[in-house]
């Protein structure tokens, strides 16, 4: 068997293992096997590539080894971040993925250009190359911006930044980049082509930044998913350039994952892709219900704890506020104390709660809350009328009944968790400010709703303490 066939065989096995890896993610029970399979696939892919390169007289092995070492040294601490920082770590790794694709595309182009290699710069390859660098570099800066917003880096504005003609300007920029790309595809060896190539790179980098500027925190789950898809597609484009099927397939798997997550996130917010990317959600100045000043009813943790302790079914609705306050371990204490009294406790998980898909599940799993008690929105809504208490911890827009009833609300049509159908509602909230969308939440003004103002961690801690002090119950 020739070296080439051995390489392809290794790639073939690697491909199958990548697919199995994702298949095993269908169930938490088999998911860790999925990671193992993914690692094996990656090792085979790297081994195969090194073998292929060696067979054709490759060099620079010490450099490559060094690069592996440096990459591992950066990667290891990145895997140890607290789970509340997982969204920004994910965005950061999309940035690395985009940069890697962009750099490889750049290297390939200048290599072929330097060789005057017209055969390797065929229109097909040029289309793939241009797609690779466009997607790669815009994913790079876009993801860095997203990571910066999530990490709340001081000089990156958290709020959506908008200015006149923003969308027109952004789309214009993209059109210029694509125009330059077309010129390149038709004349890859023209004396001006390298400058056009660099122009595409610069425009893509700029577009990535400008694309994320108008996007606010609540849209991050969708945006991270879209960037995930772009990173995958740039790997696919690289596969076309290098004629490497393993790259095409692994990139396509990543791309479809990003695509599906984006669709789920968009559906969960009742918005379109275009609306997320160009809508600057939360910027529409609300004609706020001025004049009619409604009053909250607040309550003490003592009486809230009593109501919770006497309930049969308590549904906890966690949101980004729980993540910010790192309240998940206190929530676990509360969960244990309530269960000890025979109270059934369920968690209602909205798909866009938090800053990335599945964010709440991971935080609650970290606090060792069994995953059978984490219930999806559609399922829990059926049980809501039977719930004695809905306890809302740092969630806001995902429980706003205006989404169902108020056609003028910016979140109208978004599926919500029907917390207002529970018999009693307790809402833990940091401040009296409205939520991300800048809209009042009428849930808080219902007769059955009581507010518990304060940091989620300390309020939940208080509740747990009251229940613990109260002993074994009634």
């Amino acid at each position, binding site marked *: 068997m020739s070296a080439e066939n051995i390489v392809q065989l290794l790639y073939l096995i690697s491909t199958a293992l990548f697919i199995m890896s994702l298949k095993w993610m269908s169930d938490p029970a088999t998911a860790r096997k999925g990671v193992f399979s993914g690692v094996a696939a990656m090792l085979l892919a790297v081994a195969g590539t090194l073998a292929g390169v060696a067979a054709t007289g490759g060099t620079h092995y010490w450099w490559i080894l060094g690069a592996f070492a440096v990459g591992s040294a950066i990667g290891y601490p990145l895997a140890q971040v607290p789970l509340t920082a997982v969204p920004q770590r994910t965005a950061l790794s999309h940035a690395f993925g985009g940069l890697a694709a962009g750099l490889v595309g750049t290297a390939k182009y200048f290599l072929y*250009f330097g060789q005057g*290699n017209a055969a390797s710069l065929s229109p097909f390859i040029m289309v793939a190359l241009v797609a690779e660098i466009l997607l790669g570099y815009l994913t790079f800066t876009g993801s860095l911006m997203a990571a910066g917003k999530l990490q709340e880096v001081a000089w990156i504005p958290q709020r959506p930044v908008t200015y006149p003609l923003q969308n027109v300007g952004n789309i214009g920029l993209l059109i210029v980049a694509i125009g330059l790309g077309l010129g390149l595809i038709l004349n890859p060896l023209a004396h001006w082509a390298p400058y056009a190539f660099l122009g595409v790179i610069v425009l893509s980098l700029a577009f990535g930044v400008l694309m994320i500027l108008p996007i606010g925190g609540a849209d991050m789950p969708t945006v991270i998913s879209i960037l995930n898809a772009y990173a995958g597609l740039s790997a696919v484009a690289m596969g076309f350039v290098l*004629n490497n099927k393993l790259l095409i397939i692994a990139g396509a798997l990543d791309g479809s994952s990003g695509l599906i997550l984006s669709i789920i996130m968009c559906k969960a917010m009742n918005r379109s892709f275009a609306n997320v990317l160009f809508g600057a959600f939360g910027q529409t100045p609300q004609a706020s219900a001025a004049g009619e000043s409604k009053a909250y009813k607040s309550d003490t943790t003592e009486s809230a704890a009593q109501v919770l302790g006497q309930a049969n079914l308590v549904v906890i609705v966690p949101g980004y506020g729980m993540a910010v306050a790192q309240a998940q371990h206190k929530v676990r204490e509360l969960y244990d104390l309530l269960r000890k009294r025979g109270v059934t406790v369920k968690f209602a998980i909205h798909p866009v709660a938090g800053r990335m898909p599945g964010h709440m599940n991971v935080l609650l799993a970290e606090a060792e809350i069994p995953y059978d008690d984490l219930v999806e929105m559609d399922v829990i809504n059926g049980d809501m009328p039977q719930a004695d208490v809905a306890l809302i911890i740092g969630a806001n827009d995902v429980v706003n009944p205006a989404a169902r009833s108020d056609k003028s609300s910016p979140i109208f049509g978004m599926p919500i968790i029907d917390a207002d159908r529970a018999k009693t509602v307790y809402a833990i909230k940091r401040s009296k400010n409205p939520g991300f969308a800048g809209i009042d939440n009428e849930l808080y003004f219902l007769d059955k709703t009581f507010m518990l103002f304060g940091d989620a961690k300390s309020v939940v801690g208080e509740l747990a303490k009251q229940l613990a002090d109260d002993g074994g119950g009634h």
Partner: protein
Amino acid sequence: MHLSENATAVAQVDASHASGGHGQIDFMGALFVFMLASFIGVMVIQRVSRLLHTPLMSLTNAISAIAVVGAIIVAAGKDYPPYIMALGIIAIVCSTTNIVSGFLITDRMLKMFKKQGGAGK
């Protein structure tokens, strides 16, 4: 532009070994592979438990670091100009970062998912 004139001879060799392929590139074949892989991807991912969407994303992060393959090919090329190799090396660093952190954090998260009273640590 005189980016590199010493490497014309590599051109022919390159098309065959850079790709791990055979001189002639099969565009249509590549598109078919892409199409099929996308369908498989969509079908497999649709069945991923919603509980695991965050680990799914970090796992696919690691998987898309398959770009390391392209990075190695670029970095290891014989007689390539140094700046080409440098781009490849940086790309290897980026991809390795994603491979290591992606798989490790996915496993770290998945370890935390436990069933009611079920198999503990």
